[in-house]
């Protein structure tokens, strides 16, 4: 039965030591540990949250950059298309211009040629007239007697010439 009767001395030491241990540990022991662990947990949670936010931001930035890239590509395409159109326009314009110029030049040339021809014809005519006058002079000097006959021939010749030329 002595096992079941608490001993006064041990009871005293137990109350004393357990009390001291309890007071010390509840002041400097367990609350410090629990507080530190909880603070660390909070810190980790915060870090995770900020990491998640940063990730989200990064994803947003990526999406935006992709959008910008797509926009740029579209713009580029549009510019290229426009350039193509403009090129064709320019080429066709140039074509038109060139053909018009060529046409003009050809006309000018024909006009010039015609003018030259007429000028030449006129020159030839005066030359021929001079020549025929000279011929007539010579003919008249040599065979004045047969005047009528000669004039007939000359006129005949002259008419022939002018007819064929005009």
């Amino acid at each position, binding site marked *: 039965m*002595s096992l079941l009767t608490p001993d*006064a001395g041990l009871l005293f030491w137990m109350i004393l030591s357990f009390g001291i*241990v*309890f007071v010390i540990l509840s002041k400097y022991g*367990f609350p410090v540990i*629990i507080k*530190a*662990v909880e603070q660390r947990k909070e810190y980790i949670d915060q870090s995770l949250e900020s990491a998640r936010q940063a990730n989200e931001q990064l994803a947003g930035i990526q999406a935006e950059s992709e959008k910008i890239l797509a926009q740029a590509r579209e713009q580029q395409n549009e510019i290229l298309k426009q350039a193509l159109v403009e090129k064709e326009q320019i080429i066709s314009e140039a074509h038109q211009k060139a053909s018009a110029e060529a046409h003009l030049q050809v006309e000018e040339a024909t006009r010039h040629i015609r003018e030259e021809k007429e000028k030449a014809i006129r020159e030839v005519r005066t030359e021929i007239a001079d020549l025929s006058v000279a011929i007539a002079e010579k003919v008249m000097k040599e065979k004045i007697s047969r005047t009528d006959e000669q004039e007939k021939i000359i006129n005949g010749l002259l008419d022939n010439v002018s007819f064929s030329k005009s």
Partner: protein
Amino acid sequence: MNRIKNKYLFWFTFLLLACIGAPINAATTGDEPGKVDVQDIVFSHIRDAYTWHITEWNGKEISIPLPVLVRSEERGWDMFLSSHLHHGNVHHNYYVAGEGEHAGKVVEKNSRGEEVKPLDLSLTKNAVGLLLSCGILLFIVLRTARWYKKHPYEAPGGFTGLMEMAVMYINEGVVKEGIGKEYKPFSSYLLTVFFFILINNLIGIIPIFPGGANVTGNIAVTAVLAGCTFLAVNLFATKEYWKEIFWPNAPLFLKLPLPIMPFVEFFGILTKPFALMIRLFANIMAGHTIILALTCLIFITASMGVAINGTMTVVSVLFTVFMNCLELLVACLQAYIFTLLSANYIGLAKVRE
């Protein structure tokens, strides 16, 4: 593979030989081979002692004398080492009573020649073991707490990590679960109780000097622990708790002429901590008793011949190993159960409408 098997076989044979050899030596060097007072060996361990007996070497007892602190009604305080009282010696009229009401305790022969028991605050074996484990507990917990102060926002490893795991598990899994929302003021107390019981249980299992004191297997220690839980439950109880005890929700005839139900409920207040006290005390004491009894089996059978003694030694060692493993489990389990039940009792006293 073969070599590993051989290695195991070697160690097994070695242990077997050691087992058989040891008791023969013990039997031949003892004063009276074959006469082993098992009850005395077991009870002298289970109960308290004024000296810390370590071992016996060549017939010479090696033990640490502990201070005896007594207060006599006639002569006041007195303090001396327990070595003065060895072998029935009388010192300052104090001696250890051989038999009677105070057997094994320091008693005083007063001026009228009567044997009276003085107020005995001696640092007995259990008291010293208690102080030792309190020191270890303080060292461990304060060192862990200091680590956190030095390393804010860091995760610990090694022993500190183990401590963190245990502290947080008890705090969140036992205290918070048992008490509920208002658990914070009690978490320090319950954590202290848990680690206090755990450290004392574990040190109690160690068979050599600094350990081996039967601290948590002593009723005075468990009584103080249960008393603290009793105070924690009843000092901070809510009105609803007291109403349920003195005016429970039961038929009127059970309450009015004869307060049967209030009496039963009131008795329940006392039985809960009483059960806590007895459970821890009985579990640890029984564990120590069984291990000691199994070890004594070797010395009991020493006189029965080498064959019986040898086989019993092997059986005893195997059983002791098994019991030690079991006690390791019980040490953790009892600390856990005490904390869990304390938390639940406190939680029950925190009822709200």
